[in-house]
């Protein structure tokens, strides 16, 4: 218990220093913080966190900072005050088992709450962007040596980035890395339709602890995209929780590119005849660590779910995929398919992939498959035999590996920018 208390001590101080909130919100925050204090940060003995060591987060003293969401949405979307969404806020993303969700909820303040009214079709994507700003140089995390040596600001800045970049642990010594707890709640009315694009980026070393709740009304159609482009020094822990109504369709596309230590939880709860699509693409290099945990809960009959997660690993990167699918006893005629494919470009990258099927109904179809492979030697030779250089052939095949996930992105501008990012990434790798 004392270890937990030690970790949570600094958080308690920040928690109690928050400006007062309305009673209902304070009650929620109190309950969440109590839960966080009881749980403490997970360690690797916790099965859910077996491959993801968050001790670097636990031992860092972060300075809280209010999340600053840049919102772009058409007029047909209503922005609500948190109080107007009391019935839903923190009712979907449970904080009783996940310490990070509890922590986010304990610091619940700047919540972005959007409502898509019943029957409204929002054609333009709703864009929500969180960008952690660069700290003023005086506050920025600098290694001790560069603080003593007097050098021009620009150089010092570069040097600090380079040295921090070596390892996620470097953040552990920082006294001024910030933490934000972005929080989004989207209420989609029955028969409504919308597309949501969440983007996370920033500068320097920081910790993003995000929670998004989406309530998909009956027969509604929701496409959700998350683009995680944090810096390679950042911690990013996020939970997306979707509650999907009857005959509604929800799709999540999780694109994870940045971050030193990243954990994405995507949880979808289906009802009768719901359809859930969970796509993911993670690209990691250096010492990056990315953990994708998904959970698809079929609670009622005739639900369908399709899951495709693909990863490209280079350097000493580590990727974790854990895909849980629950088919409850009432969820007859469930049709579920899960695929995780990993392309490993180096000898030192590591993949841990695990399907986790819990099936309590007897008339269901559930398939799953996972692969970890290297570039296909035969395909490489085929390209080379046509005059294409080996490095270009490698980058072409790597790009091609990600192509089917990219093709599923329906937002043209997002697909274009992702294609550009991928092209640059693999071109760089090829040089």
């Amino acid at each position: 218990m004392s270890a937990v208390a030690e970790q949570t001590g600094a958080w308690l101080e920040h928690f109690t220093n928050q400006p007062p909130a309305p009673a209902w919100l304070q009650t929620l925050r109190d309950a969440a913080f109590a839960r966080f204090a009881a749980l403490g940060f997970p360690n690797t003995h916790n099965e859910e966190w077996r491959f993801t060591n968050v001790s670097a987060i636990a031992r860092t003293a972060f300075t809280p900072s209010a999340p600053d969401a840049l919102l772009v949405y058409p007029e047909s979307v209503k922005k609500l005050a948190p109080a107007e969404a009391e019935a839903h806020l923190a009712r979907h993303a449970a904080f009783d088992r996940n310490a990070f969700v509890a922590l986010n909820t304990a610091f619940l303040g700047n919540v972005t709450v959007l409502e898509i009214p019943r029957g409204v079709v929002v054609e333009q994507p709703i864009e929500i962007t969180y960008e952690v700003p660069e700290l003023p140089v005086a506050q920025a995390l600098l290694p001790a040596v560069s603080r003593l040596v007097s050098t021009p600001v620009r150089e010092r800045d570069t040097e600090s980035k380079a040295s921090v970049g070596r390892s996620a642990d470097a953040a552990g010594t920082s006294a001024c890395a910030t933490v934000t707890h972005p929080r989004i709640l989207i209420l989609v009315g029955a028969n409504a339709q919308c597309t949501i694009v969440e983007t996370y980026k920033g500068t320097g070393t920081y910790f993003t602890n995000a929670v998004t709740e989406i309530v998909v009304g009956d027969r509604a159609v929701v496409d959700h995209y998350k683009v995680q482009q944090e810096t390679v020094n950042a911690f990013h822990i996020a939970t997306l929780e979707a509650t999907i109504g009857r005959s509604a369709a929800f799709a999540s596309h999780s694109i994870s590119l940045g971050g030193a230590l990243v954990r994405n939880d995507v949880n979808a709860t289906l009802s009768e005849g719901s359809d859930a699509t969970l796509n993911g693409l993670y690209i990691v290099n250096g010492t990056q660590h990315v953990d994708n945990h998904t959970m698809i809960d079929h609670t009622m009959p005739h639900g369908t779910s399709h899951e495709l997660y693909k990863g490209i690993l280079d350097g000493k990167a580590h990727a974790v995929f854990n895909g849980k699918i629950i088919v409850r006893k009432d969820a007859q005629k469930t049709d579920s398919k899960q695929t995780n494919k990993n392309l490993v470009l180096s000898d030192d990258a590591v993949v841990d992939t695990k399907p986790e099927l819990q099936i309590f109904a007897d008339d269901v179809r559930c398939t799953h498959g996972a692969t970890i492979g290297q570039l296909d030697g035969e395909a490489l030779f085929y390209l080379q035999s046509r005059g294409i250089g080996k490095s270009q052939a490698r980058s072409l095949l790597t790009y091609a590996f990600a192509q089917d996930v990219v093709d599923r992105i329906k937002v043209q501008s997002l697909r274009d920018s992702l294609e550009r990012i991928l092209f640059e990434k693999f071109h760089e790798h090829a040089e």
Partner: protein
Amino acid sequence: MALLEIKDLHAKVGDREILQGINLTVNAGEVHAIMGPNGSGKSTLAQVLAGRDIYVVTGGSVTYDGKDLLAMAPEDRAREGIFLAFQYPVEIPGVSNMYFLKAALNTIRQHRGIDELDAMDFLNVVRDKMQIMKMDQTLLNRPVNAGFSGGEKKRNEIFQMAVLEPRLAVLDETDSGLDIDALRVVAAGVNAMRDPERAMIVVTHYQRLLSEIVPDFVHVLAEGRIVKSGGKELALELEAEGYADLYEEPEAVGKV
């Protein structure tokens, strides 16, 4: 000077020695057919010439246009004008045929010191060649060979050859799996490429392709060696008599 000179070529895959001393000279303008039963080393020879690294050359030499071919990377061989039409063309999902072929053509053009083509010029170049191969233009936008029928894959190989204009084309069992109509289309594509400056090595199991693509020379490969060479009539002989007699003969000689 011969375009291609293979001398006492030995190659193995794993522990198995497949090529056991191949000798072959090919001059520009010639079409050589290499026939032989399954497992005789025909495809290995084709793949070794293109530079597939799973085959290890253990002896001998290959001189192409005066250069040591075996010292060159596969892409450099292609840029120098060698083309292998694969027996089993590889499917590459996620890469469009058009992107792939344009990248290949421009790399080769760059190597030859010719200007690269933009998308418009490229389309003009490929349009005619697709017509010769009776290929639908939509194939350009599809991923390389992915979901192509057997015949489409083989036609795509010859189409690529027509676009890349090699100096030495090696056709590995281009006839296998083709019905007679498709075979004629493929053969017409190949025949349109015959040129005094260009040589071809046509690897095949059956004579039937050789009535469409008439070779100047026919060689019989058995157990990793060329056991018999002759003119185009040798192919007909083989068709009538089969391989058995032909390659048991030198075997017997060798045992004496």
